[in-house]
């Protein structure tokens, strides 16, 4: 199960990286329309699904509270991505018109994206360490 956890954690990193690429697709497509972001929007759901699977795998691998929590962190941060857009809209931003505070709030989306990538990479490192521990034979393996 711990090897599966490495695979699912790797998948999370790959999907998050793809999401960055799709943000590029959205940002650079011309003419710029809301449809340009369709792939990035679908990507958000893909990230959530992969992270959910990763959490379940981490729990089944008996990875321990902190590692499971780290596996879950990207999910919370992805929700925050939606919340940032909602905040910006509530402050008066719209698809057509976003300047001043609504713009500065929603721009945090990019930094939070980096945080998601960071959490995903840390999750992968955790999973690999766990798998390495399993190979050398940790006490928990004998009891499991």
């Amino acid at each position, binding site marked *: 199960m711990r090897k599966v956890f490495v695979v699912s954690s790797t998948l999370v990193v790959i999907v998050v990286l793809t999401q960055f690429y799709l943000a590029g697709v959205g940002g650079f497509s011309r003419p710029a*329309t809301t449809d340009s972001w369709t792939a990035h929007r679908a990507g958000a*759901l893909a990230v959530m699904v992969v992270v959910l699977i990763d959490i379940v795998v981490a729990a089944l691998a008996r990875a321990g509270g902190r590692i499971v929590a780290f596996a879950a962190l990207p999910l919370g941060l992805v929700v925050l991505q939606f919340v940032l857009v*909602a905040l910006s*809209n509530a402050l008066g931003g719209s698809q*057509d018109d976003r300047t001043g505070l609504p713009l500065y709030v929603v721009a945090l989306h990019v930094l939070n994206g980096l945080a998601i990538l960071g959490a995903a990479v840390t999750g992968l490192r955790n999973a690999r360490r766990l798998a390495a521990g399993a190979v050398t034979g940790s006490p928990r393996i004998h009891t499991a």
Partner: protein
Amino acid sequence: MSVVLVLDLLLMVVSAGLWVAAWPLRDTRAGTPVLIAAVLATVARVAVVVVLGRAGWWFLPDRLVTAVPLTLAAVVAGIAVTRRRKAAVPVLIIAAYLAVAGLAMQLVVGYPVTAGGLVAVLGPGAVALLVWRLRARTARIAVMAAAAVALLAAGVTAAAGSRLPDRLDHHAGHGVSVADLRGPDRPPTRSFTLTARAAVVTLPSGKTVDAWTFNGSLPGPELRVTRGDLVEVILRNELPDTGVTLHWHGYDVPAGEDGVAGVTQDAVPPGGTFTYRFVAEDAGTYWYHSHELSSTAVRRGLYGTLVVDPAGARPAETDLVLPVHRFGGGVTVLGGSDRRETRDVPAGRPVRLRLINTGNNAHRVAVSGTPYTVGAIDGRDLNGPTPLTAETTLRLPAGGRYDVLFTMPAGAVHVMVDGRESEGLLLGAGAAPPHPDGTELDITRYGRPAPGPFGRYDKDYTLVLDRLIRFLDGVPGYAYTVNGDVYPDIAPLMVDEGDAVRTTVVNRGTDSHPMHLHGHHVLVLSRNGRPVSGSPLWLDTFDVLPGEVWQVAFRADNPGIWLDHCHNLPHARQGMVLHVAYRGVTSPFAVGRRTPNHPE
């Protein structure tokens, strides 16, 4: 209110993060500060929820389900901290779960709180508790497997159930068909032909727009008729592969002329035609647009303006129709121009500017250089409008129309949209007058009150607008909902002819929703519980801002099946569409995969 909604969301995210962190950090130096912060964030959120609750019960149930037990857990943890002891682990786990569940309630359940929603959000916690308590390994596995199967089954059922069928007959049955509720069949007094075709249009600035047009122009032709005219409009479709219809936005035509694909007609296919007929009885400012794939079609240019002049001789007046439109590429035009236009108007001449928002978001319009009045909104004259100056700006909601009236002064008058001083329309001679910082006109307090026609109400409906995770045609997404559902699952508002119908519209979300009812004008009764104190407001599009509660009423005097939807058309496409249906009226038209119709 939108600030309170923002605070609520922010505190919920922050407290969820803090509670989730408080549990693993319990035995570290950071444990106590994080726990204190979590308790404080929770207490702060209680205050915000109380403020939200004052706006109406609709904002509360989903919040209370998690906020009440979370507050109890926070109190227990807080007491432990003040006694310099560590909070018990079960308390921290429960608090972390509740804090995250609160977010899930907000994103998935909304209003009303349903049993299914409660199970979906709180069920996993109950299952985890059960698995933890069970001794036998097989029992644990059985419980987990059962929960997983139940979750999967619920998800698949919801996804499959949301898929549009080949043909969805909303309103089949016995009764009068909307296809028979048409305009008069006698010879018209005014006839127009509108041909939908693709064209690359060059704007005055030199920019080009790859557009779908009526008659090759942006906007489409201005249709100007006189009160009493029998208007005939022949629609031809020469687009390569898209259907088209004509919807008369704000003009309350018979149902069969309303131009909604899949409800009042089939979309006109490439090469096809459709003839619309109606009697122009209500003088005022209106517009028309395609209601097939409307979110794409309107943005790309399938729109134009309709003006009904009063009958009889008119005084010499400069009457300008100024639709504000934003194309996909971000170009905004006022009238047909994307740059500063000037127009000579002699001093002393009465001027009427018909401002129309044909886009998806509200525009802020400012008029400087002269006192002016807003003489009409949504094609209905206001009672006793008082003069305004450049220090008042007008918030023109998507789909809405304001008629601005003034007498031309000696100097120039400038009409500015969204603060772009170098663009807009300059009337008269001389330098453009400056625009001071303005405050927005509150239309519910503008003009003189007059008694309304409604005494009692035969029907009373509530529409709670929100943004929730829902399946849209089989695909999960962050959709726009009414009463927790998306189109086509939102229950129609059923009315009988002659009913006085009162509707309360609540916006729980953080986007504004310009709600547009077809076929009727609604009288605004109150906003946020405060009755309208100015002129009676008869609107067809009213902008419900985040956290607002509008109460409106209309007389069911135009039998048919009518769309009631958000005129931020991407919101409509993402679910925010319902029908107002008269009992005994049916429709032979349908939406679905094997029909030509996609109203949004």
